C-alpha cells in the first residue's frame, strides 16, 4: 500500500501553508487512516479498484477527501468521539483518530462511491516556528 504518498504530498503542500508541523502531522495521520479504511474495507483490497485522494487547500483550510468504491457504513449510527472500550484492543481506532485530529469530518456518497472528507483549519500558532531569540 502506497500510504507514504498522501503523507508526502500533504507535508509538501502544507509546508507552503500557514499550518504548524503538528497540524500537518494530524491531518496526514488522519488521511492515512482514511486511505487504510478505503483500501481494506471500501475496496476490499482489490488492486483493480481505484482509491482516489482529492486535495483542496487555501491559507484558511486544508481539505482532503478519500474515495473508495464501497458502500460505506452507517456513519450516523456511530459516535466518532468514543474510543474502543478496551484500551488494549488491537484495532478499531481509525475513525476515532480522524475525528480527534481533524476540525471537520464529513461522509459523502457520490456516483456509487463513498468518501471521507477531512478538514484541518490552521490555528495560526507560532509554536512550531523557530524563535528568533534562539538563532544565536
Amino acid at each position: 500500500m502506497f500510504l507514504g504518498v498522501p503523507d508526502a504530498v500533504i507535508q509538501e503542500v502544507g509546508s507552503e501553508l500557514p499550518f504548524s508541523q503538528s497540524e500537518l502531522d494530524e491531518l496526514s495521520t488522519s488521511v492515512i487512516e482514511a486511505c487504510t479504511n478505503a483500501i481494506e474495507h471500501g475496496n476490499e483490497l482489490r488492486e483493480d479498484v481505484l482509491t482516489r485522494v482529492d486535495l483542496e487547500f487555501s491559507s484558511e483550510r486544508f481539505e482532503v477527501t478519500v474515495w473508495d468504491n464501497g458502500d460505506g457504513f452507517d456513519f450516523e449510527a456511530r459516535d466518532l468521539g468514543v474510543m474502543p472500550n478496551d484500551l488494549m484492543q488491537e484495532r478499531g481506532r481509525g475513525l476515532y483518530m480522524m475525528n480527534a485530529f481533524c476540525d471537520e469530518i464529513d461522509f459523502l456518497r457520490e456516483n456509487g462511491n463513498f468518501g471521507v472528507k477531512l478538514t484541518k483549519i490552521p490555528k495560526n500558532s507560532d509554536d512550531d516556528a523557530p524563535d528568533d531569540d534562539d538563532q544565536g
Partner: protein
Amino acid sequence: MKIKEREVDGVTILEVSGKIMGGPDSELFNSTLKSLIHQGKSRVVVDLAKVTWVNSTGLGILISGYTTLKRNEGEMKLLNVSDRIESIFMVTKLHSVFETYKSEDEAVQSFATE
C-alpha cells in the same frame, strides 16, 4: 518496516525503521518477538527514532507485542518516540500503557531497577 536487533546489558534493543502500518509489518514484529521469547530474551526496548509514522493498525502491532511479552513475563518499553507518534499515543490514551524513554541508557537501566 525494518528491524535491527542488538543487545545491551541483557536487554534487547529493536531498532525499527520506516512505517509501522500492518500487513507484513505485523508478521515481522510478531515473529521477531516470538524468536526473542524462545531465546529467553523478554526484556525489550523498541527504538522508534527512525519510524516515520504509525497508523492505527501499527498501534495494534505495538499493543500485540506489549501483550505478548507481558504474557511471557517480559516487558516492552519504547525509546525515542517522535512528537507525531506521541500525539497519537496521547489521543488514544496509550501513553498510559507504554513506558517511554528519551535515552537508551535510561531505558536499559529501567529494567535493572525492577
